[in-house]
């Protein structure tokens, strides 16, 4: 059974943004296709159109030379197009089997037989009767894939599938995808990770600003050539200077940190120990949900734990709240820019004032001194290359990259001794990532310290002096970044051990 899928002249325009501009592509079964592009390049819009979630303004989709209508997800399913979204479309509180049965027209017994066959055939190990919220990200993804396989898909679309997986889980996924491809399923693989394109896919289409800029066989491509096509300019690569922090004094020391949560969604932390010197960057790697959130909140003072010792600049700060910690020259950039770091409905200058209640003279006798805050905000905008000079703009209208620059700028302008960042470049495009990375290197060079909690291994290897891995609330031993490789991190992140 040969499958041919063709999209022809697809356009989709959102207010102020052309998401897809006359996109035409052809796919055939037996091959794995990569759709490569930066955030906002239009990949996700295109696959949303293919899966019936979004309707195109113009253009047609052909399956085996016949026009198909994709007005709803149901119609995509009827046409045997399966889709695994980047953000899982699972029902967390329902069991795995309930999740699978919800859109199946088979009765429960037949479905169970079918699902067990699929589990056996592809060597998936998942308990069908536990709630989905107990599964790891990799297992959740398998549930999504099984949900597609139940319907005998002709086309399987994977949207950024490895962003939540360990290296081992990624390898497993690639083996499965190759197996599906052999079984005649046409696979479209959306990603912005270049290595994956080269190791998995046969053909690659690069998208930029809503247009397809190149289609080629992956054999003919290299990482650099793909990167340049994706970004559209030659990128200068950043190289971290080796810092001479080894002889400097210790600035932060955490000993025997324990945290036990009553919330089943949170992770308990067990006996964490770490120390940090002046000018050092400590990277903390790990798959999301292994305790990073809790660790960040304990560092920032959002969670106060009993009996924990956090020594910072020779002072016990374990009981200080976030504001007091900031006054003692700590700074924080949380993971969730829109809800934790900034208030989207507030204007830029108002957001800038939020972390600075006392130390400056923004407030006099309880009144807001707008003029001073605005001057301060303007300084941040220009010093940190935020692409606007309008401090009256509501923060929600900033792009992710600009918002992150604003947040980092707000934190750094008070010259803190320690910056704790949590996934500072998550979801940003290459240009913004570069800028944030340069800034983080700069503060180390100025003798300030940083803790980088990140799920992006390349970023950690690039910026850290020391690296450790957090797994199920425990820290691995702290390693010198020069001796660490992505493979080693992958093993530790998956709960393995290295010597």
């Amino acid at each position, binding site marked *: 059974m040969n499958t041919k899928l063709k999209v022809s002249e697809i356009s989709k325009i959102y207010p102020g943004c052309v998401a897809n501009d006359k996109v035409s592509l052809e796919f055939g079964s037996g091959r794995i296709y990569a759709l490569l592009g930066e955030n906002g390049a239009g990949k996700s819009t295109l696959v949303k159109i293919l899966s019936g979630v979004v309707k195109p303004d113009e253009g047609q989709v052909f399956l085996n030379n016949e026009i198909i209508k994709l007005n709803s997800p149901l119609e995509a399913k009827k046409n045997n197009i399966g889709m695994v979204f980047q953000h899982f479309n*699972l029902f967390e509180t329902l069991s795995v089997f*309930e999740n699978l*049965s*919800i*859109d199946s027209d088979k009765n429960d017994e037949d479905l169970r037989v079918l699902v067990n066959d699929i589990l056996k055939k592809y060597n998936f190990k998942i308990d069908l009767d536990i709630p989905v919220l107990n599964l790891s990200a990799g297992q959740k993804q398998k549930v999504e894939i099984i949900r597609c396989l139940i319907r005998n898909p002709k086309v399987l679309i994977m949207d950024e599938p490895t962003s939540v997986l360990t290296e081992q889980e990624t390898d497993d996924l690639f083996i499965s995808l190759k197996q599906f491809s052999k079984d005649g399923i046409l696979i479209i693989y959306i990603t912005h990770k270049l290595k994956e394109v080269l190791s998995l896919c046969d053909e690659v289409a690069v998208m930029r600003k809503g247009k397809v800029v190149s289609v080629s066989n992956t054999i003919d491509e290299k990482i650099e050539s793909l990167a340049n096509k994706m970004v559209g300019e030659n990128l200068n690569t950043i190289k971290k200077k080796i810092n001479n922090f080894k002889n400097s004094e210790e600035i932060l020391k955490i000993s025997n940190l324990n945290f036990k949560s009553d919330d089943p*969604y949170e992770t308990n932390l067990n006996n964490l120990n770490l120390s940090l010197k002046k000018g050092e960057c400590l990277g903390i790697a790990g798959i999301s949900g292994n305790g990073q959130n809790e660790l960040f909140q304990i560092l920032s003072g959002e969670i106060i734990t009993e009996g924990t010792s956090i020594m910072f600049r020779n002072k016990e700060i374990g009981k200080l709240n976030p504001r007091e910690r900031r006054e003692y020259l700590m700074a924080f950039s949380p993971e969730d820019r829109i809800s934790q770091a900034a208030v989207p409905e507030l204007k830029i200058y108002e957001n800038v004032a939020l972390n600075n209640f006392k130390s400056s003279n923004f407030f006099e006798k309880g009144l807001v001194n707008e003029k001073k805050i605005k001057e301060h905000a303007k300084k941040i905008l220009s010093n940190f290359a935020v692409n606007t000079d309008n401090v009256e703009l509501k923060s929600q209208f900033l792009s992710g990259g600009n918002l992150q620059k604003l947040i980092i700028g707000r934190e750094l302008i008070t010259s803190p001794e320690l910056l704790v960042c949590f996934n500072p470049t998550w979801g940003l495009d290459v240009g913004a990532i570069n800028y944030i990375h340069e800034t983080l290197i700069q503060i180390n060079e100025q003798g300030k310290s940083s803790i980088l909690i990140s799920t992006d291994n390349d970023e950690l290897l690039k910026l850290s002096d020391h690296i450790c891995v957090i797994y199920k609330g425990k820290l691995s031993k702290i390693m010198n970044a020069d001796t660490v490789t992505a493979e080693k991190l992958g093993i530790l992140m998956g709960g393995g051990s290295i010597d």
Partner: protein
Amino acid sequence: MSFDLNFIGILIGAIMASSVPLILAASGELITERSGVLNLGVEGMMIIGAISGFALMVVTDNLFFAVVGSMLSGLIISLIFGLLTQSLLTNHVATGLALTIFGIGMSAMIGKNFVGIPGKEFPLLFLNLKESIPFLGPIFFGHTIILYFAFVLPFLTNYFLKKTKTGLIIRAVGDSPTSASNQGINVTLVRYCCILYGGAMCGLAGAYLSLIYTPQWIENMTGGRGWIALALVVFATWSPIKVLIGALIFGGITILQLHMQAVGLRIPVQLLSALPYIMTIIVLVVISRDSRKIKLNTPTSLGQIFYKEK
């Protein structure tokens, strides 16, 4: 001895009767909330059900029409809520509060002409068994058909939610409307149906009050029972069986404290009147303190407005 036992039997029968409106309204609201819709208009829908049931009884002289009509009127008024929250995407909380205020005002207006009219006797089933069996007789027999329905309803609701495909879809919509929509489920339709069902049950609960429990029309006769039903759903952590238990405790203590007042116990009346509320909350909190189960039962998207990406 046998007289005492019989008295206890009659007391239990009375407790069951007083908890019926709570069970009906709470079971309906439970389905609504399980689909992710928070309808605070329970009190308003109940009182509309109460007045329309009573008015139809007076006008048609037919109890069947009265009961069906009360359910229809609850359904229609919940349709207003549905239109506002699901099609016009208004805030659930504000709309629900408005619905209650509207319902109370509207019922008072319609009810003006019906004050003081006597009710009609509602047929009681198995009356001869009630008389002939001591103790168990008054508990199990001699009730109206609506009471029997109310006591079966939580079990049906439980089965429906846990074992049927439709129940699964409702739980899925309440868990994540976006995921459900991406799976091809018509979230808005599902939520409309759940809202309408909840409205019909609240209407029936109101009719039980005005046709059976105190068969007459009195302004504001629901007396906050709608709010109790709402609280029951939350404190019972969206479990139909616990709703039943909670309603019985509330009804039980309400009746018992009345008897205690009558006997003249030297406890302040205010404290006795507050007792049902306090005890119900304590018991439900204690029986549902398993935080894992709460997570699994709570409709994650409760009260959130859902709109489809276009």
